[in-house]
């Protein structure tokens, strides 16, 4: 059954059938070939119960929030402000890319949305100030991936939904690794630019008055983050309800920043529906596949397979990491997550690992998948915003950041407390 699912998955995906539909087809196949009783009778109920979910409504809310902020110009002003603060470092404006990505990650649940936002505002500056296009665009592609690590995160919501783990705990667990990754990106940029100063463009030092004056432009994002995360941890709202708070605050911010028009609202809504439907088709398909897999006895089969391998827990987790790195080259990331969670997570938990910790490790690997070719959405998003130059520039520029992510994955395996300390301390 494991072989059937893996081979079938790759074959159907490569035929360019939509990912969500592939998951349904595999579920139908399991029903026909592996199940003693007809599972398809449960299809309608599965589709109903997996979309009738108050948890998942956080997805359209977080997407909408991002759409509103991009369309109101808050993103561009945040970038300018951060430029004043970090451009004295070797690497100059590259650090503003990372810093802006980090801030937007704290209000956006999506990596691609974060990368798209930062790329739109940053790219015009790169040529004007003479930056190396590789390092500059690589930093945006990589920085954008923080969107799914630093809370809120759509991917962590989906992970929590599918593995029945606590979403507030997952959010807390992602915070420290997310900040460490951002610092890692900054350190690697400094190192590269100390060795090759020509890559980093001009270092610029702004007078203190300008630095302080710029702070006001960071307030909207800080305010929004505080409102979202604050209401969750004050116990006033669930992550879903906090997303609704975020939408309301984003509207207020947009009203002050640029005014709200009917056009802007309807464009934001259309973008939101498109993204949400795409995610939900995959999530509903995965729920149905999960249902058929567990009904057909995948758990037992996996346990036998695992005992047959005779791996130690550490060797096992390294194999899992390898699998994600390789699959991450080829498969779109949310799909990769949703498809593998039902198969891999039960195995990892059976080895004695914490599902919250594994969620974070998986996010690091998924972040890597976002910037590794040939299928790495963030690379395309950044290239799309560049409008000129070679695709390979972005890919090469991302390599140093992939190394940082590998180090982060190793650090998480060596020191699980990086992820687990905050959830435990604040519980």
């Amino acid at each position, binding site marked *: 059954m494991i072989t059937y699912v893996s081979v079938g998955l790759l074959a159907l995906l490569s035929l360019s059938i939509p990912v969500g539909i592939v998951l349904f087809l595999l579920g139908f196949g399991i029903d026909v070939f592996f199940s003693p009783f007809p599972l398809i009778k449960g299809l309608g109920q599965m589709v*109903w119960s997996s979309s009738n979910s108050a948890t998942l409504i956080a997805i359209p809310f977080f997407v909408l929030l991002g759409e509103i902020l991009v369309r109101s110009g808050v993103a561009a002003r945040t970038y300018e402000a951060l430029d004043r603060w970090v451009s004295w470092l070797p690497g100059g404006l590259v650090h503003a890319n990372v810093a802006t990505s980090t801030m937007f990650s704290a209000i956006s649940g999506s990596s691609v949305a974060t990368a798209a936002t930062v790329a739109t505002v940053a790219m015009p500056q790169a040529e004007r100030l003479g930056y190396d296009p590789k390092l500059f665009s690589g930093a945006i592609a990589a920085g954008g991936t923080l969107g799914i690590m630093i809370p809120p995160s759509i991917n962590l919501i989906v992970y929590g939904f599918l593995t029945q783990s606590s979403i507030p705990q997952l959010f807390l667990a992602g915070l420290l690794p997310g900040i460490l990754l951002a610092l890692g990106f900054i350190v690697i940029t400094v190192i590269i630019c100390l060795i090759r100063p020509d890559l980093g463009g001009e270092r610029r030092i702004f007078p203190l008055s300008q630095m302080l004056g710029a702070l006001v432009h960071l307030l909207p994002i800080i305010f929004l983050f505080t409102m979202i995360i604050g209401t969750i941890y004050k116990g006033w709202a669930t992550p879903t309800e906090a997303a609704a708070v975020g939408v309301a605050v984003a509207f207020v911010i947009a009203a002050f920043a640029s005014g709200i028009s009917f056009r802007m609202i309807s464009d934001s809504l259309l973008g939101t529906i498109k993204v949400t439907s795409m*995610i939900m088709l995959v999530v509903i398909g995965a729920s149905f596949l999960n249902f058929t897999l567990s009904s057909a006895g995948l758990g037992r089969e996996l346990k036998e397979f695992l005992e047959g391998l005779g791996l130690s827990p550490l060797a096992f987790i390294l194999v899992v990491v390898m699998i994600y790195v390789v699959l991450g080259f080829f498969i779109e990331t949310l799909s990769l997550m949703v498809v593998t969670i039902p198969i891999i997570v039960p195995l990892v938990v059976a080895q004695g690992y914490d599902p919250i910790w594994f969620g974070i490790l998986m996010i690091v690997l998924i972040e890597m998948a976002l910037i590794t070719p040939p299928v790495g959405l963030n690379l395309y998003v950044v290239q799309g915003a560049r409008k000129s130059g070679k695709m390979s520039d972005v890919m090469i520029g991302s390599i140093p950041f992939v190394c940082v992510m590998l180090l982060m994955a190793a650090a998480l395996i060596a020191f699980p407390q990086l992820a687990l300390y905050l959830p435990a301390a604040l519980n």
Partner: protein
Amino acid sequence: MTDRFLTRLRALNRVVAVLIGIMLLACAGFVLLDIILRQLGSSFGGTDEVSGYVMAIATSWGMGYAMLELGHVRIDILRSRAGPKGRSLFDLASLMILAGTVSVIALRCWPVVERSITNMSRANTALETPLWLVQLPWFAGWVWFALMAWLTFVTALLMVLQGRFDASEAAIGVFAEEEAFQ
């Protein structure tokens, strides 16, 4: 003629998408009010339940719009290597499989609604919502998605038969990457 038909389908689904977007906004407002009320010591009760229903209905009705805007993710590894004719075959086959699968889903969703109607089932919650009341629009959304998929398929098939591979690619090809969100 095919182009005009497709433009109309898109326009129609854009209206649907804006309407469900407004429904989501209303739901966000409702949740927000409830949070504020709870701080004041009272509550509507049942915001969770209502959010769930809104999500189910928004999801099923948004699918057709996402399909017409090429929003559903497809892996482009083999397809991108084919010529225009080959690509259009990939697209047609993939859309036919989608339409077939979605039809099966829609058919299998009906028994859920039927059961709620015959048993007059109510949600096991404080609101005691009659389930058919929310399941009927949810089911209709899946039927709508199936209908849109078949109509788009026939339109694109006609385009390909006329040898207009560019038009078919624009109608049912793979999403433009810079617009991809996740």
